[in-house]
Each structure stands twice: as C-alpha cells, then as structure tokens.
C-alpha cells in the first residue's frame, strides 16, 4: 500500500483532508494511473535490479549468457543457413546480417517470455501487498535490456571485424529498441494475464516464440519470400522493427511504410494486452 501516495484528484477542492481514497467495486474500462506509476518509480528500479541480480546467480558464466545467447544462435544459423543452405545476407556477410536480426529478436523473445511469466512468478508478492501491478511485467522487460546492451557491444565488435562502417543513423536504434520493449511488454502483459488463468500459456510460449521467429525475417532476408506473400510479413509487427534495425547501423534507408504497418498492428496487440492485464489485475488475488 502506498505510504506516500501522491495526492488524489479531489485534494485540490478539499485542502483540509489532503488524502482520500475510496475502495469499492469498480466497473467500466480500467484506467492507468500515471501519477501513481511515477510515485512507484523507485520500486520499478529495485524490482528490475532484483531481476538482474538474481538471474545469473548460481551460474558459472553469469552475464556472459547475455552474449552467448545471440552469439551462439548466430554461429548456428551462419553455419546452417549461411554456409550450407546458402541464404544470402542481403549484401552483408551472413554473420553480421543474422546477428543484426538476432540481437533485437533475442531481446524481444526474452522480454516477452519473462514478462508473460512474471505475474504467476510473483504471485506471492501480488497477493500480499498493493502496488501498481504494471511494474511487474515492466521490470521483466527492463531487466532484459541489460542483456541486450551487453549483446549490443558484440555487434560493434562484429562490425569492426568485418570492417563495416557504423552509420550515424545507428541512433535510430534508440527509438526502435524502445518500440520493441513497448511491444514485448504489451503482448507479455496480455499473456501474463492469460497465464494466471490458464497455465497452458507458459508451455505454449517457447513454441510460439520459435514459430514467430521463423515468421519474421530474422535469419533470412525479406526478398526470400515471393512478392505476393510479403504483405503477410508486414502484418507481423516485428518485421518492420527488425528490418529497420538492420538498416539503421549501416545507414541504409529505413522502410517507413513497413514500419508504420508494424507500428499499427503492434499498437493493437499492445492495447489488447494491456486491457486483458488490467481486467485480470482486479481479480488476480481471488484467482491465483
């Protein structure tokens, strides 16, 4: 329960009683209280820190796992797709091409997997104390950002190795990463809520992520697909993001049209996710 919650809205009208909160059955569309979220920013920080510091506790390699995940995938795909199947790297050395896709994809997959498991994983916490529940999936996606940052350094090394110059438009990666985090959190929230009721979800997610990865041009270029089927790829919100991700550090033009379609589909998915989450939030303690 907040001990120093920001003043409620009617405080302006009644300065004598600065704090007033009414608890009753709520109907209607769920709202997100941004002021309250802001008040709890320290908690978000500590929850995220907890996620980070316990993730690699009792592991031999520790944070090296953050590098190994995309790096080993890159090696495997370079070997099987790049060498054996001869998939082209869209004018790039295949290892660089696939790492540029695997880097944001690994982040997206980790963030989504973690946030969708977060509600059930923190059930004890959620049934004992009130705080904005949104912080739980949010801290899951934020904690995955640390792994992402470490893996990003490897990208720079890889590009230097292949003597590929880094373009200024690499700065695009900042909004692109934020968008990826946003998408992962939104969908992860919806799945987290669903997971509370049906634990089937946590079994389905590894498959879902695997299928989704192959439905996204992560390890193959878009033009592998015949022209008339490409619109299907665009409906996948990760397509525009991954494509832009790949273009930005190299200074290639970003396909804004594809990005816009991705953004639109992504927003719809996030809206559904948040809505499911907020509905679950109310009955969470009674269900879990």
């Amino acid at each position, binding site marked *: *329960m*907040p*001990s*120093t*919650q920001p003043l409620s809205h009617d405080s302006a009208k009644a300065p004598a*009683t600065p*704090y*007033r*909160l*009414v*608890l*009753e*059955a*709520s109907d209607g569309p769920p709202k997100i209280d941004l002021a309250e979220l802001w*008040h*709890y920013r*320290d*908690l978000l*920080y*500590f*929850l995220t*820190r*907890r996620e980070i*510091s*316990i993730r690699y*506790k*009792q592991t031999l390699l520790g944070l090296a796992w953050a590098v190994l995940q995309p790096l080993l995938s890159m090696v495997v795909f370079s070997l099987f797709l790049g060498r054996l199947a001869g998939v082209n790297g869209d004018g790039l050395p295949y290892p660089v091409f696939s790492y540029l896709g695997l880097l944001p994809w690994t982040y997206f997959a980790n963030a989504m997997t973690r946030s969708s498991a977060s509600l059930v994983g923190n059930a*004890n*916490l*959620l*049934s*004992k*104390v*009130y*705080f904005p529940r949104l912080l739980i999936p949010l801290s899951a996606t934020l904690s995955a950002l640390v792994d992402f940052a470490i893996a990003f350094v490897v990208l720079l090394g890889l590009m230097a190795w292949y003597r590929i110059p880094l373009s200024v438009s690499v700065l695009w990666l900042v909004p692109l990463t934020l968008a990826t985090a946003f998408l992962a959190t939104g969908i992860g929230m919806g799945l987290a809520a669903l997971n509370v*009721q*049906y*634990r*089937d*979800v946590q079994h389905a997610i590894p498959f879902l992520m695997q299928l989704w990865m192959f439905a996204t041009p992560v390890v193959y270029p878009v033009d592998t697909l015949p022209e008339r089927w490409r619109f299907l790829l665009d409906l996948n919100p990760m397509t525009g993001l991954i494509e832009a991700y790949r273009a930005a550090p190299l200074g290639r033009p970003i396909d804004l049209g594809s990005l816009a379609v991705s953004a639109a589909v992504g927003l719809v998915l996030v809206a559904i996710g948040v809505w499911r989450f907020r509905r679950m939030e*109310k*009955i969470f*303690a*009674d*269900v*879990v």
Partner: protein
Amino acid sequence: MSSEAMLRVTELSKRYRVGGPARLSNNLREALTERLRAPFRRAASREDEREFWALDGVSFDLSPGQVLGVIGKNGAGKSTLLKILSRITEPTRGRVELHGRVASLLEVGTGFHPELTGRENIYLNGTILGMRKREIDRKLDEIVAFSEVERFLDTPVKRYSSGMYVRLAFAVAAHLEPEILVVDEVLAVGDAEFQKKCLGKMGDIAEREGRTILFVSHNMGAVQRLCGTAILLRAGRLVAAGETREVVSRYLAGEDRPGYSATVRTGKPQLLRAELKDPQGAPVTRALSTEPFQVHLDYTVPQPAPGLRVGIGLLTLEGVAVFTSESRDAGLTAPVEAGEYTARVAIPGDVLMAGDFHLAVCLWNQAEILDLQEPALTLSVDPGPSPLYAESAARKGLVHIPCAWEVESHA
C-alpha cells in the same frame, strides 16, 4: 468520530464463488469450447457454482489514533477484510473510505529474496511497501539498528537465521510512516522478546504519533494489550463491537470459541470442525504443559474414500513442525466408508513446553491432499507446575525430553 473518521467501512461485502471465476483447474480447451458455444455470455456465469459471502455488510469507523482489534475464528472474514483494506482485492459491494495513507502488513518480508543481501532487501521491501528510495536512505541506520543485524547487512539473507530474517523484515515495516497501519498477526512470528519489541513499537506508534491501527490476531493477550476497542466477526458479519475486554470475553465464551469450522462444503472428505478439549471433553482454549489435552476433529466423508488418512501437525507460529501424527501411527486405519466421523487425538502432558502453537489438520490419500487446514486452530500452552518452570516461565525449547543426567567427579 463520524465526520473526521480516518477510515470508514460501509456495508462492506465480498462474495466468493466456489468453482466460480477461480477456475484455475479448467483448461484452456474447455474455456474455448465454452466461449464458442455461447460467445456472448460472460464466461463466469454458471449454474452449478456456489457462492458464499466472506464478508457480509460490515460497517465500522476508525478515528485518528484509534487502535482496533479484529477478532474472530478462522473463516470469519478477517483476512478478506484485510485484503480489501490493503487493495489486494476489490469488494463486491459497499465501500471503504480512507482519509490517510495506508500501509498494510499481511506478511513480514514481502518480496524478500533469499539471494539478495540484507541491504538490498531493505530497499526492495521498503519500496514494495510504498517508501521512496530517499526515505529509506534517511532511515537506513535506524532500520538496521532496530533489526540488530548490522554485521550481516551485506550477506545474502538466505544465510540468515529465521530470527534475523524476521527481525530485519519487521524493522523495515516498523519504519513506515503511514497514517493508517493494517497489521495481520504476522507479528506473532519471531522470538518472544522480539515480539514484545514489535508490539511495543506498535504501541508507541499509536500513542505517541497518533497513528491509527487495525490489528488482526488470534493472540488475545496481544489484542488486549494493544487495542482499546475491538470488533468480532462471525461468518462474514460483524457481531460485536466495543471495548476490547468485552469483545474478547464474548469471543472466548460464545459460539465463536476458537476452533475451526468449515464454511463451505467441498464435496470431498473434509474437516468440519476442530476443537481443543480437556481430558474430560470440556472445550478449552489453553492447555497446561503438564496436563494432557485432546483435539477433536469432526470430519465428513461424502463418498467412500479408499486409502483415506487423517493426521495432525503441531507447528510453531513460524511454521516449524514440532511433530506430526496420523491415525496409522497408533495402528488405526481411518474408516473409508461414507459418513461423518469424530477423531479424538490425545496429546500427553509433559511433552510440550509452554508457548503458542498452530495445529494443522490434514485429510489425504496417496494421490492427493483432500483437505489441509493450516492452521486449523491456535493454542496456547501455559507453564504447568513443573520444576522446568521453577525459576522462569521463559524456558527455551519446544518439547520436553526427559534426559538422563550423570555427573562424575574426576577428583
């Protein structure tokens, strides 16, 4: 206290459905087919679900500085009330008006992670309870001093003893500065001395700082020490309110006599009632360490239940099992035919040391736990006339083992 109440509860009600929205056991496929069959019907509405009101039209006010005890036996609605006040769940009807910030302690050390150090856990737990980082920075020294774990501040709490863990956890909670504090009997954990310190701190808070406290406990001693007024809940309804002494004596005398009784029928073999009795069969709430006492368990077996087993466990308030016992230990196989039964378990005298204990009751078979009530009831064992307590009532230990002693002289 009408207009300046800190907390006003009006006609508060909470309905739970048995087999209702808590349909965790149902799988996704079932839910999907049901949706497809009736796409426009709310998935939760079902004929066969039974509902019960965990809280039913409860109203009371708390004025600033008031310390209110909430008593009632298990299932009376105490925890539901706490959950609503803590914003963990919403009421079905009625409302709560809060005119101050609330901190609720339903558990000490919520969010504590064993791998994190004491310091990290102070910050995590503190922010979970609603504190800001700089507020914790400011109070850190005080928190650490209160917890008495200075030397282990940077040690992962998994290396802490349970006493240290609880002290640290409570120290954080004790330094919250809400205007209304809602406390579950979590404070019953920890050693007696620390308990006193906690209760003392709570008393201080209420007296000196005029903080409003709502205290839920089975410990009548603590309720009487701390609370000026109390309310008694029975089956979700408020049945008595007033001065603590009167409400407590009503609780101890009436049908609210501490003991377990089931509120809903699950359709499985189930404990209906658990009671503490003296060797003559008269109901009691306390036992004497030197005297035997009995536990009477009324249970039902709705359908024949092959392999049914019945057992009890005596636990410390921290949840450490002192002993467990089942009928088979005494060479008795519990009947498996449908029917209602009473099991009488005699616990010999001179075995338990004085202290407070939880009694857990379990019905199970090889495949699953059919009913587990933990705790079904709480009992206090008072020091009996024994040399053990000749000097002090605070003798350490949970059980009394008569050891043989010899001392030889080497001279």
